[in-house]
């Protein structure tokens, strides 16, 4: 513990002894928890080698995990691109000179941020199923992407708004003073800087989208979680779910690390003095790493 912590002074000999005692007790408690959990797993036969080996066969990966990861990434990838478009349109709309445009954009963004993603997914899924716009097997995919786009697009819109709002006032004024129209100022001066400042938050939002895509399992989209459940239909529920969790954690942890790296780089470059804060300055959505 460094002495410059807000909460504690540098520990003296008595405090150090106390910390040592707490450390030993905590370690023992943890060890106890782990041992009890392992005993329980063993008693239920969940630690048998065969059950775990089944997770690393060619067929498990070829038919379940790899297609699942690909479906998850496909939905998440398309959704992030579309939500950036949506977010740009409505984020700029919220900053518009025109009161009506501002008001409508605000209403749209607040609406889609306020309702659960799953509710939107279910609505789209059944609507498409009844209307038969797409082939039945693509309905779940379209519903997942549409719901993810609307919710995350609304979050990105807030990011755009706070990114532009946190730029120094002089940027916009300078643009106007050299004779650019408000629209040109926004496009040529404010947005590029705001988007750079938003980058880390956008990558964090990608984690949210990846996690939310697992909701697709509920409406039969064959993403990673559903593939794991299909594999679990063979009788072992624990191992496939643990594997799926590990895969999600690996992918998302990589993205989280990338986000903080980007944040450090952008701050170091001093490219822009704006910082789009993570939850767009207002409660209502996720804390950095999202809803689900």
């Amino acid at each position, binding site marked *: 513990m460094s002495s410059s912590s807000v909460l504690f002074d540098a520990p003296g000999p008595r405090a150090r002894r106390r910390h040592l005692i707490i450390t030993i007790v905590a370690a023992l408690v943890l060890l106890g928890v782990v041992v009890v959990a392992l005993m329980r797993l063993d008693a239920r036969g969940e630690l048998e080698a065969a059950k775990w080996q089944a997770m690393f066969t060619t067929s498990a990966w070829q038919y379940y995990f790899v297609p699942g990861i690909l479906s998850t990434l496909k939905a998440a990838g398309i959704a992030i691109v579309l939500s950036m478009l949506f977010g740009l349109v409505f984020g700029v709309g919220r900053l518009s000179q025109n009161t009506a445009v501002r008001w409508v954009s605000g209403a749209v963004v607040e609406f889609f941020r306020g309702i659960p993603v799953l*509710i939107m997914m279910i609505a789209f899924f059944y609507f498409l199923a009844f209307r038969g716009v797409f082939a039945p097997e693509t309905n779940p995919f379209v519903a997942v992407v549409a719901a993810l786009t609307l919710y995350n697009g609304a979050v990105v819109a807030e990011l755009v708004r706070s990114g532009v709002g946190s730029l120094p006032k002089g940027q916009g004024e300078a643009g106007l003073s050299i004779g650019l129209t408000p629209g040109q100022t926004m496009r040529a001066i404010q947005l590029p800087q705001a988007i750079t400042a938003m980058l880390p938050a956008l990558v964090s939002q990608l984690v949210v989208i990846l996690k939310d895509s697992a909701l697709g399992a509920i409406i039969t989209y064959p993403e990673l979680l559903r593939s794991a459940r299909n594999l679990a239909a063979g009788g072992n529920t624990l191992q496939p779910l643990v594997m799926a969790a590990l895969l999600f954690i690996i992918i*998302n942890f990589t993205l989280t690390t990338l986000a903080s790296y980007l944040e450090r780089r952008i701050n170091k470059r001093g490219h822009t003095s704006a910082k789009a804060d993570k939850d767009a300055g207002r409660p209502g959505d996720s804390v950095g790493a999202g809803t689900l």
Partner: protein
Amino acid sequence: MGELFAQFDVWGAFWLTIKLSVWSALWALLLGTSLAIMRVGPVRVLNVVGAAYVNVVRNTPLTLVVLFSLTVLGTRLGIQIANDESPTFLVDEAVRWAIFALSVYHAAFVCEALRSGVNTVPVGQAEAARSIGLGLGQSLRHVVLPQAFRGAVAPLASVLIALIKNTTVASIIGVAQTSYFMVEAIEFRPDLIWQLFALIAGFFLLLTLPIGVGLTSLSRKVAVKR
């Protein structure tokens, strides 16, 4: 609209959503606070454990956590958390595992919200408290923690709103809250799909918007001007 209320137990579904939200919020706050204490405390082991918990939980989809709770912890490992004497045993069990999963999941976010509150307090504040002769307990009680709590209001509000919306995920283990009712109602009355959507969207907006607006203004009011 009237037909929906006549045909389905709309209020029951809404009430269960609210019940899930309240209980999960309470447990998440308790667990998240303990995690935050572990993470900011002076003991290395606890720091590491807290950080590991947050990183694992934050990067796992809630859908998976909910499913894992009932199917693996409940069914496979035979851990019972409801009274098996009662006639509603199976329903209770699913509801309790849903609350368990929601609490465990959101505790990680509560922990991070509280930590970001602590991070809003400049080191100079603590140094100043020590330099006027306050002990550790006094400086925490009178100087550091009051400011930290005030800084944590806004992120905690975000977590609460996310939690309310996330209760819908419980439908994957058959808990009959709003999203479960929605699927059921659409199956029976496909003609009312948009009324249903409007009703449910309205219900969630009614819950989330006032909390959002109220807590935002509260967080502005109590924020420490720096």
